[in-house]
């Protein structure tokens, strides 16, 4: 049980970390630049918040299966490919919520920074700092989605015991095998992790 929990945290933690590293800056880039089709792009990103996990699973599976374009890497059914899949899965949420976080900073903050002598770069930094809690929330919501999804994890991870078995896939498997006690316990762990994240998000949003 501990091992499964540790694997879960390691995989979803890495994917969230990578997603934050790539998509928080991307969200900033989109927010601070005006270009044609910006609103459409943001709308599309928001549509992908509820991207079906099995669909991402299918795409990743196709890409990394032996005949697929990335099949040569041979990482299908490894934790690595699960991380890649989860990064794609939560990319829209992290990007979109980062944009929302930055848009949530009142325009007066920008004026204030500029009026006190901030350069363009310093102004952007100030707005980012103002949005720090909301941006962290974006990352945590992404983590919540990564940790609780099951479709992608089974399809590209393969639910290999002691290797790619995570809380959600373990629950699915044990339940179909007629066990009730173990999946219930795993479910409790998963729920308390999700609850922990949710409490954190709530606290941050009050700041």
């Amino acid at each position, binding site marked *: 049980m501990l091992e499964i929990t540790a694997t879960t945290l390691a995989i979803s933690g890495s994917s969230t970390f990578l997603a934050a590293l790539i998509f928080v800056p991307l969200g900033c880039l989109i927010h601070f630049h005006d270009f044609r089709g910006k609103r459409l792009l943001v709308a599309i990103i928001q549509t992908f918040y509820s991207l079906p996990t099995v669909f991402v699973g299918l795409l990743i599976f196709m890409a990394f299966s032996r005949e697929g374009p990335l099949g040569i890497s041979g990482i299908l059914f490894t934790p690595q490919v699960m991380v890649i899949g989860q990064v794609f899965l939560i990319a829209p949420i992290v990007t979109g919520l980062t944009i929302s976080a930055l848009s949530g900073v009142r325009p007066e903050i920008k004026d204030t920074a500029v009026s*006190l002598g901030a350069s363009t770069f310093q102004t952007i930094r100030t707005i980012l700092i103002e949005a720090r809690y909301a941006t962290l929330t974006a990352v945590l919501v992404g983590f919540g989605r990564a940790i609780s999804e099951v479709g992608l994890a089974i399809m590209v991870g393969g639910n290999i015991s002691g290797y790619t078995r995570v809380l959600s896939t373990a629950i699915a498997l044990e339940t179909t095998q007629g066990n009730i006690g173990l999946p219930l316990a795993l479910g409790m762990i998963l729920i308390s992790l999700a609850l922990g994240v949710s409490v954190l998000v709530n606290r941050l949003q009050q700041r």
Partner: protein
Amino acid sequence: MFLEVKGLCQRYGDSEILKDINLDVKRGEVFVVIGPTGSGKTTLLRLIGLLDKPASGRIYFGGQEVTDSERSRLEIRRTIAVVFQKPAVFNTSVYDNVAYGLRIRKEKGASLRNKVTNALETVGLSGYENRIARSLSGGEVQRVALARAMVIEPELLLLDEPTANLDPVSASNIEKLISQVIQKLDTTVIMSTHDMFQGQRLADRMGVIMAGKMLQTGDPREVFNLPRGREIAEFVGMENILGGVIASNEEGMVTVDIEGNVIEGISNLVPSEEVYACIRPEEITLARARDSTSARNTFPAEVTRIVLFGPLARVEMDCGFPLVALITKRSAEEMELQTGTRIYASFKATGVHIITQ
């Protein structure tokens, strides 16, 4: 000249917000822009503060024209500080808010600490250093904004209606604080307000802006007593604005015919010119009987309404034309004024300000 503004225009979409604004401000001067809400005061201050770019027109600082180059704009902007009508505070401590402008300018260590501490002391917020700025009241936020602006020792301080959003007590405290800060900094200040009296209390010179046009500039006394048009007259509290025609002019002593009533005043306008005779309500004295007086104008009147506020009474009368006088409440009581009381209203010829229609 410290600041020159030439032919400044601004528009948003189809509407013209500012029309051909020309302005000179000397170093160390406190220039107050007064005008009603929506007249363009904020827009003008934002342009002078280099927060926006004008549709057309030029701004010069110390004789140097402001260009479009971001670098030179930033350089000038760093000598200016702005306090907005509704200041925003950064979601950090009071200390960090005040330190912001200094940190932007790469100041650190003991000198930064001293400056911030001094600024907080000046605005009366010592001990507030670690408070979260967002948890402060409106008046306290305004103090933080003032401290944040003064701490960078700006060459030009822009104050955009700094008391408009506050309750009367906070507003009066902030106004006192502003006049202290102005004295302490000894810097050039441009402030906007819709409060004529506040403008008069703080200004070395003032400009009246209405519907995007700078209609009159001059020292506060002049603007207050010699408004150049009907709109300005109304704005500066000339409650009695009577339309009429100049009937005669003998060596500057004119008579104005107002619907058959004749008012004497001082003007160089010629007969048959259509004018407004403006009289401040506090320039009018009331009497129960027609006494001999040096005042050139005395009219029998009937009180139509009395409104008391504080120690004053606003007496509305009908003397063939409507007239409003401002007297003390005590006088009104001693004269036993009531609606319908018949009295005499007098005012001096020099209290009549005559402007063309």
